[in-house]
């Protein structure tokens, strides 16, 4: 980029705007710059988008147990066949269709969960140390409390008390309990960054704490934040599946997740060929986990300045 362009970007009127927009624009530029160099990342994301695209193309069914083979009358507990790829269950539901729905919804659920917990982690991990003083003490105290606060029992507790649970409620409960480890590790990164000279230099340009946190610190912990996002995603999906499997998930039965598929086929009321009923959702869960693991590690390669310099 030429000198003139760079100056143009720093128009004074734009400076008046909130530091958030400036930061976002800069981060966006930086990401655009990396996009050219990194192939794995793009591929991972493209695959993800394609999967999501396919999943959204599945017809939305008001009754999730209603098969896409409308009008076909079929028996329960069918073995896998060309008509029913994974067979049917005791309630004559096409397992393959249920898994398709479950996959899409689980991914949505995981993304929602990860968004929530990553936001909380950034708020407490980045801004705590940067506002400093009482806010810092408070944020690290809250993090410490949530750290040892038993999240699973608590999620159990709330979920079992609520008569009407929608998947949004479950998502909020899980998301708001799975951030403390992330906040702590972001925080420790920020604490070392805070001692770096470039922070001092920004301070000597009389920039506010928030502005520094956004434009100097956040880009530097971006890899970390994306990592946290991917891990939170995994935690979200797996926790939700565990809860749904116990029957504590969404109650409307319009939102089948992979865990719900497993719950519906709990081993007590086994059908003769029940293995493929619970094995397949589990395998899909592991696969989703793996895809995000690959994306996450390519993120690390992409944003690590050391690997970047070698390019």
């Amino acid at each position, binding site marked *: 980029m030429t000198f003139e362009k760079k100056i143009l970007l720093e128009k004074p009127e734009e400076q008046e705007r909130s530091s958030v927009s400036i930061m976002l624009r800069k981060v966006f530029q930086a990401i655009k710059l990396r996009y050219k160099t990194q192939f794995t990342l793009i591929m991972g994301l493209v695959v993800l988008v394609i999967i999501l695209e396919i999943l959204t193309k599945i017809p939305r069914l008001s009754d999730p147990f209603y098969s896409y083979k409308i009008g076909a009358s079929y028996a329960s507990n069918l073995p896998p066949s060309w008509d029913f790829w994974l067979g049917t269950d005791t309630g004559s539901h096409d397992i393959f269709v249920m898994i398709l729905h479950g996959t899409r919804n689980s991914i949505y659920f995981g993304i929602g969960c990860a968004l929530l917990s990553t936001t909380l982690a950034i708020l407490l991990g980045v801004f705590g140390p940067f506002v400093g003083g009482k806010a810092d003490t408070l944020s690290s105290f809250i993090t*410490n409390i949530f750290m*040892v606060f038993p999240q699973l029992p*608590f999620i159990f507790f709330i979920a079992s008390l*609520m008569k009407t649970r929608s998947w949004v409620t479950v998502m909020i409960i899980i998301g708001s309990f799975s951030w403390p480890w992330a906040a702590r590790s972001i925080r420790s990164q920020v604490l070392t960054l805070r001692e770096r000279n470039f922070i001092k230099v920004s301070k000597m340009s009389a920039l506010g704490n928030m502005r520094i946190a956004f434009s100097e610190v956040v880009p530097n912990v971006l890899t970390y934040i994306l990592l946290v996002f991917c891990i939170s995603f995994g935690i979200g999906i797996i926790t939700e599946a*565990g809860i749904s499997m*116990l029957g504590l998930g969404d109650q409307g039965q319009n939102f089948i997740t992979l865990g719900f598929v497993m719950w519906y086929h709990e081993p007590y009321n086994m059908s003769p060929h029940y293995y493929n009923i619970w*094995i397949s959702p589990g395998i899909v869960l592991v696969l989703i986990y793996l895809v995000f693991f690959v994306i996450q590690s390519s993120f690390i390669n992409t944003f690590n300045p050391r690997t970047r310099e070698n390019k």
Partner: protein
Amino acid sequence: MKSIETNILEEEDSQTKTSLIKQRTTTQKFISNSFLRLVVTKLIFYFIIFFIAISLAFLIPRLVPGNPLDYINQLGSTGLPPSYQEQIRTYMEQLFGLDQPIWVQYWRFLEAFFLHGDFGLSIDLDTPGQPVMDLILPTLPYTLMVAIPTLIITFFLGNLIGAWVGYNETKPRKVIYYIVLTMGAAPFYWFAYVLATIFITQLQLFPPLSTSVPNFAWDWAVLEQIFSHFWLPLILLIMVNTGGWSTGARSMMIYERGSGYILYSQKLGFKESKLRKYAYRNSLLPQFTGLNMNFNNIIGQTLILEVVLNWPGLGKVMIDAFSINDYAMIIGTFVIVIFIIVIGNFLIDISYGLLDPRIRIGGQEG
């Protein structure tokens, strides 16, 4: 305009100031010097957490839509005999003061727990009108006998595997490492199905899931039956939790191996076995800080596995209570679970304080 010389005049004044500073810090030193301080801080911290949890256990049932506590007025639909219904209703209303203002209820709730350890009566058809505490406490050993061995075994096993791989990254070692890692990544409840299928349905090593675990008794036959159910959840939890420790220990070991003192001692010709011992010990210590979170995770996992594998611990009781809306039971189990977690974390923190020389003696902080 002052110059340097004038500072000399002020010297006396400033000297008294610095001596004041020094005096104050020596008294500070005296208080902070003891290990007691750690114990007291942690005690206060965990009491706060426990108090928050208890308060939430009180508040949430009253906040969620369709106040669950109304169930006391709708006992008719539970199918309980009327005499029990009457007994339970009067008992609960009296215990928690359900007709009183909310802060009185809160006070009664705290009183009931802290003074009497009482959470009300169960509405379960099998055990109607029994105090829930009497039903919950016998299940506690079942949860703990799975969770605590898991915590200890996985800590040592996982760290040893990780350190062993990190010390010498040969191919077979790496293969084992990745197997351990993959097991940790699989969803544990799903893994429970897999293991149940292999060990129960196929190999028939353990009794089927549908058979229930007998109540505890000092009788050889009963103990044998209990233990025949016990192995599967234990093995499963160990398999699932080992991976997490290995990753940490491996990177610690790689770091240790590359650090100056190992290389230097190698050059000096120290015995390999001695060096390995040092490296293992140094890469183990930082891992202790992970114990708290791992303990919480293991308890959570145990609760879910108990349901899947039909193991009569706290989680099973909680889910059973959930399916019949036995709220006294739900609240009771929740508080007991929190209690275990808080006590466990406290003990872990204290033992960490005893082990770590930096905490024992005091050191640098950023």
